[in-house]
């Protein structure tokens, strides 16, 4: 099992009030699954994603990634896991504005301590994979939204993580570009990666092989789609 989540709780203290963002979540994800986590805002899906991505730690329950319990790890150990195991793709791209595409893609390798030439080589490969070889030296503001998101995908892939974690990856894109990006995710999944997608759009979620619906900090439903995602990816 890649991800094992049992009785997960996350309680926020907002003023004097306690907010139960996650209220007992159980979830297993196997390697090379393509999972969409859906739910309205406030359902706890972002909190769950943050915890899976090791950006946040639970206040109760357990989360094991590749058998390793995450809850008790130090900041630096979490950073290490984010670096090695997680590839993030964000709704707002979150690229470094002053760095060109190549350098953005290199970033996880910088923190992994990969040497300069090796970094360059692997970053180029990743950029090639998303078809942006000719845009390598461009800064984010010289790229279209779709191109930016593809740079972000290359960055997520470059350190060969266990999980690609995408938070509303098409939220800032038009429908056609969104479809393009979803195709890219389909390809990534087919190459053996585990993809976890957080979205509130059913259209996007239908690309995934499994849809987990959340409401009020709990999992409402967990369904495997009849239609294979490869077909849904609309090649």
């Amino acid at each position, binding site marked *: 099992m890649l991800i094992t989540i049992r009785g997960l709780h996350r309680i926020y203290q907002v003023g004097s009030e306690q907010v139960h963002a996650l209220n007992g979540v159980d979830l297993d994800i196997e390697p090379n699954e393509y999972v969409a986590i859906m739910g309205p805002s406030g359902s706890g899906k972002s909190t769950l994603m943050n915890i899976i991505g090791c950006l946040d730690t639970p206040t109760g329950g357990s989360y094991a990634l590749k058998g390793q319990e995450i809850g008790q790890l130090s*900041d630096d150990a979490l950073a290490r896991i984010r670096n090695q195991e997680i590839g993030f793709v964000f709704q707002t791209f*979150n*690229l470094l504005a002053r760095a060109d595409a190549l350098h953005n893609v290199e970033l996880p390798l910088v923190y992994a301590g990969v040497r300069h030439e090796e970094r360059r080589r692997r970053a180029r490969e990743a950029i090639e994979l998303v078809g942006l070889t000719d845009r390598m030296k461009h800064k984010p503001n010289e790229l279209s939204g779709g191109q930016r998101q593809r740079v972000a995908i290359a960055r997520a892939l470059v350190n060969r993580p266990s999980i690609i974690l995408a938070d509303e990856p098409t939220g800032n894109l038009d429908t056609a570009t969104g479809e393009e990006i979803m195709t890219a995710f389909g390809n990534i999944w087919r190459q053996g990666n585990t993809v976890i997608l957080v979205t509130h759009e059913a259209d996007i979620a239908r690309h995934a092989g499994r849809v987990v619906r959340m409401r009020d900090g709990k999992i409402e439903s967990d369904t495997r789609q009849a239609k294979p995602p490869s077909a849904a990816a609309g090649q």
Partner: protein
Amino acid sequence: MNLRESIGIALGALRANKLRSFLTLLGTIIGVMSVIAVLSFVEGLNRYVSQKLLNAGANVFWVDPYGFVTSQEQWEEVKNRPPITLDDADALRQGVPHAALVIAQADGQQTARYRNKEVKGVNVRGRSAGWELVDDYSLASGRLLTELDDQRSRLVCVLGAEIAEELFPGLDPIGKWVRLGAENYEVVGVMERKGKLLGQSQDRFAGIPVRTFQKYKRERGFFGITVKSVDQASLPIAEQEVRNVLRGRRHLGPRVPDNFGITESENVMQLYRTLTGGIFVVTIGVAAISLVVGGIVIMNIMLVSVTERTREIGIRKAMGARRRDVLTQFLVEATTLSLSGGLAGVAVGVGLALLAGAITPFPTAVSMPAVFLGITMSALIGVFFGSYPAWRAARLDPIEALRYE
């Protein structure tokens, strides 16, 4: 996280925001610049003064009625003392066994003339024979002043190189007669050129026998005596011997203080050290203040930078940057920033020192310890004042940082 990456980011930020960087670094630049400029100036003076004092000869001291006067009150006390006479000098020659040379001397200013040429403001030096050894000149042509010239109060002179050139362009001055004030002197020698000292030529003089000076120009200067001891060890003995001789000649009782003064180059050195020590302290003070102010400005701009780049920090953390990676990045940035200021300050300071050396008579020598100090100080300031902003950046929560708009 490698250093190159951090330095690259820092230099990129510097370039991207030239005016802001300049204003940020102004304090550091001024601080380092003033340290370099002033210390280079002091260093130049140091070298110059110690060189000159060494030239004036090791083991030399100076006897005159007044001693080393450093204030008006002191001058009021000593100004009516009896003069030193040439007989005193003769007595010292007899009565100071540890003296290698006793040179009586007096100085005046006069106009020198040869035919239709004249040179104003010539330093006329009345000197005992052998004076060139303590004044550090060597003969270029002709001969030196001799004992006999002195005893007979001959009207002979040796000329400084500059006077010789101005009065006798293209001519050999030896044997010519030059008018100094009211008398004509036969030029017997020309001295080797010595160059400038604090912008003053050292070659605009005419040396004449001290007795000749006494005979014709008595009113133009007071007599003093330079004594050169046999060696360094015998300097204090020679001083004591001089004191004994002069007190004896002046019939001073055991409790009466000296009514003459003995000055060693050490006294001059001490005054000089006090003066430059003052400059030094003031400069260090000014520099310290501007460096602290510069450091605070750097801290401020780094805090602004951390806030502006909250999202970037979030991104980096999401990509696996540890606290120490972020800490290092911002520390390196602050240090790169302040070090750039330091280097700019060194450049401007050295430039100022060299410029001052070129256009003013004051000698300057770039002080390498000062350059080193400036660079080190500016780097330390970056580390010190960069620590707090860097620490703030390092402990940002990645989720909040990523959400920051």
